């Protein structure tokens, strides 16, 4: 972590994620695997407005974009981690190029690969994913390390005139323990029933 300019300037994960997202019912939510899936699972209890990855690393952004394109009148939120996002940086360019106004992205950045034993991620070595998002064409980006910035960014997620990207710098504490349903065929069906009324 020695190269991480944000060491010591990170928010507490368990409180920062819910504070940023607010009422999860404001969104259709797609999460990346591991920590962010548990962050959202802990907030919502597998609510059918959420679809959570537990594999296919790197696929959350594209899936959220597909949903946003299919449901242009609904607000879609992708909540994913720095590891997942580093594996799918091209999808930032895809979203930045298409600019769907109903899609927001939150990256819960703990600067490490916690799921595999805490190896440092590239964001601890100078990679700034908010800058990458900005350079990829996101008109609105935030890099959040303080409570004040957190409150402002919560509003940014709900703005309706462009896609937005919020990098949430959090500490190394674990995401909430939550035993979510790992059967994607079931969560998919629950999601479609709730949104569309069909299986």
């Amino acid at each position, binding site marked *: 972590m020695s190269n991480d300019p944000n060491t010591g300037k990170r928010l507490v994960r368990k409180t920062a994620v819910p504070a940023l997202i607010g009422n999860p019912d404001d969104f259709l939510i797609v999460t990346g695997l591991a920590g962010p899936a548990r962050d959202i699972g802990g907030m919502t209890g597998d609510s059918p407005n959420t679809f959570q990855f537990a594999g*296919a690393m790197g696929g959350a952004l594209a899936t959220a974009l*597909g949903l946003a*394109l299919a449901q242009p009148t609904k607000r879609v939120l992708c909540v994913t981690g720095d590891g997942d996002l580093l594996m799918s940086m091209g999808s930032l360019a895809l979203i930045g190029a298409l600019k769907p106004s109903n899609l927001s992205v939150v990256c819960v950045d703990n600067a490490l690969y916690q799921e595999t034993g805490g190896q440092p991620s590239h964001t601890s070595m100078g990679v700034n994913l908010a800058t990458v998002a900005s350079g990829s064409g996101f008109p609105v980006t935030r890099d959040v390390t303080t409570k004040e910035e957190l409150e402002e960014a919560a509003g940014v997620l709900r703005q309706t005139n462009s896609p937005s990207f919020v990098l949430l710098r959090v500490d190394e504490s674990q995401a909430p323990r939550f035993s979510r349903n790992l059967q994607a065929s079931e969560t998919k069906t629950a999601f479609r029933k709730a949104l569309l009324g069909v299986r």
Partner: protein
Amino acid sequence: MNATTSGGDGWQDRLYDQLRAADVTIFSHVPDAGHATLIDRCGADPDAISVPLTSEEEGIGIAAGAHLGGKRAVLLMQSSGVGNCINQLSLIQHGAFPFLTYVSMRGEYGEGNPWQYAMGKAVQPVLEAMDVHVMTASSEEDVQSMTQAALTMSFNAERAVAILLSQRLIGAKKF
């Protein structure tokens, strides 16, 4: 012109119309001569969405997300891009999402670029290893009939289907 798109390109226009008639509205693609007509058509269609991918595996998530939102998507790619998709196909297989892709083949009938053969050979076995049903279209009639079958298999039976467009059909790139 790179890969020839066959005389008059009629079958590609008919394929686009066939997909649109089946309520496919989202077309994910990477730049590809073999799919050029479909890419142009979806880009010009006010009722369709053209999604220019940075890499083929994004088309997997687009298809899954579209289904979550009640829309139908297809992925247009070249054989070389199939290799980029393999892990993302976990989402399709495990989630039982509908999935339909058209693969313009390189590295088979009449190929002049030796780099293309490795992935050309691997397309069918790696797709089948990920539980994707593979059909190879070698004629215009194949495209029409296989598409009709694949639409039912994917969007009604929630299966994953790939239709490989052989170089017998689309023509080998000239060297």
